[in-house]
């Protein structure tokens, strides 16, 4: 018998600290697998953000930097400009990217920085114990919206891909999910395309991955995946928002 699936070399041996059933683990694995398949593990510099993924520099087997809250795209900009031949990515959650880091992500995209951003959106602040995020859905119950998010009081969720799609510097924007075998393959293709866009120096690439937070949603891991499919996808439609016709694959 031949081994057809094994833990990727793009991850270190350290066990993830994430809660049981959290899809951060799937997203980490996909990024690591793509880095191995493109043979860029030795030349990639990742930027960790603040949130549940604050110490993912322990998990990726490439070089990593930890940025201040929301500033990962700014740190990545500096790294990429000093080391233009290295691959640079940021890994950010919605509390980091869509709240305190809104300015950084918009201007990195506007400048067309040659970096990739992987944006895990789970519609809640995970690490700080489930407060409302800018991406929280209308009606969604969180610890700071106990009666459900009310548009009159708390405004509307931010659709980051749609917002960035107005900027010419953002050449590739796609939203994916990781709730079943097929969608995980699609997510991996999107991550691969983002790295290929950077390799060809075409501009800024962002992949938004709809993610789960079973602990703070108060759901089982399996229920959480179903909630993404049934409730999150209508608010955050999947698809390519920029760069659908980019030919990047070698």
């Amino acid at each position, binding site marked *: *018998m*031949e*081994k*057809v*699936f*094994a*833990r*990727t070399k793009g*991850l270190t041996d350290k*066990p*993830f600290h*994430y*809660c*049981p*059933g*959290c*899809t*951060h*683990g*799937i997203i980490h*694995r996909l990024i690591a697998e793509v880095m191995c398949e493109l043979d860029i593990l030795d030349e990639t510099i990742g930027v960790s953000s603040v949130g549940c993924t604050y110490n993912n520099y322990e998990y990726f087997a490439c070089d990593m930097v930890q940025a201040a809250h929301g500033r990962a795209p700014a740190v990545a900009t500096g790294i990429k400009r000093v080391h233009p031949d290295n691959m640079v990515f940021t890994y950010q959650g919605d509390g980091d990217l869509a709240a305190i880091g809104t300015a950084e992500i918009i201007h990195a995209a506007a400048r067309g920085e040659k970096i990739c951003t992987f944006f895990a959106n789970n519609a809640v602040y995970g690490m700080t114990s489930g407060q409302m995020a800018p991406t929280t859905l209308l009606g969604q119950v969180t610890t700071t919206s106990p009666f459900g998010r009310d548009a009159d009081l708390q405004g509307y969720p931010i659709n980051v891909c749609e917002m960035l799609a107005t900027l010419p510097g953002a050449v590739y924007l796609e939203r994916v999910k990781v709730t*079943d*075998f097929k969608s*995980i*393959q699609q997510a991996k293709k999107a991550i691969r395309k983002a790295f290929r866009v950077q390799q060809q120096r075409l501009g800024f690439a962002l992949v938004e991955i709809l993610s789960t937070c*079973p602990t703070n949603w108060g759901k*089982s*891991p*399996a229920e959480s*995946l179903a909630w993404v499919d049934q409730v999150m996808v209508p608010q955050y439609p999947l698809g390519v928002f920029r760069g659908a016709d980019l030919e990047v694959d070698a």
Partner: protein
Amino acid sequence: MAKVEFNEERCKGCGLCVPVCPKHIISLRRDRLNSKGFHPAGVEAMDQCIGCTFCAVICPDSVIEVYR
């Protein structure tokens, strides 16, 4: 012939691998505990495994290796 191997120490018992198995042979092993205190997932009827990798792909903690 195919088989899967579970690294039980890494498993957090989230159970995402259980419903995706087309042969319905994966379960959380109530008779076992790992050092974190979770009941790890496992397979008893390994002869029915077809090596489809569905369980390994959905696993957030890269617990599963697949052979075929």
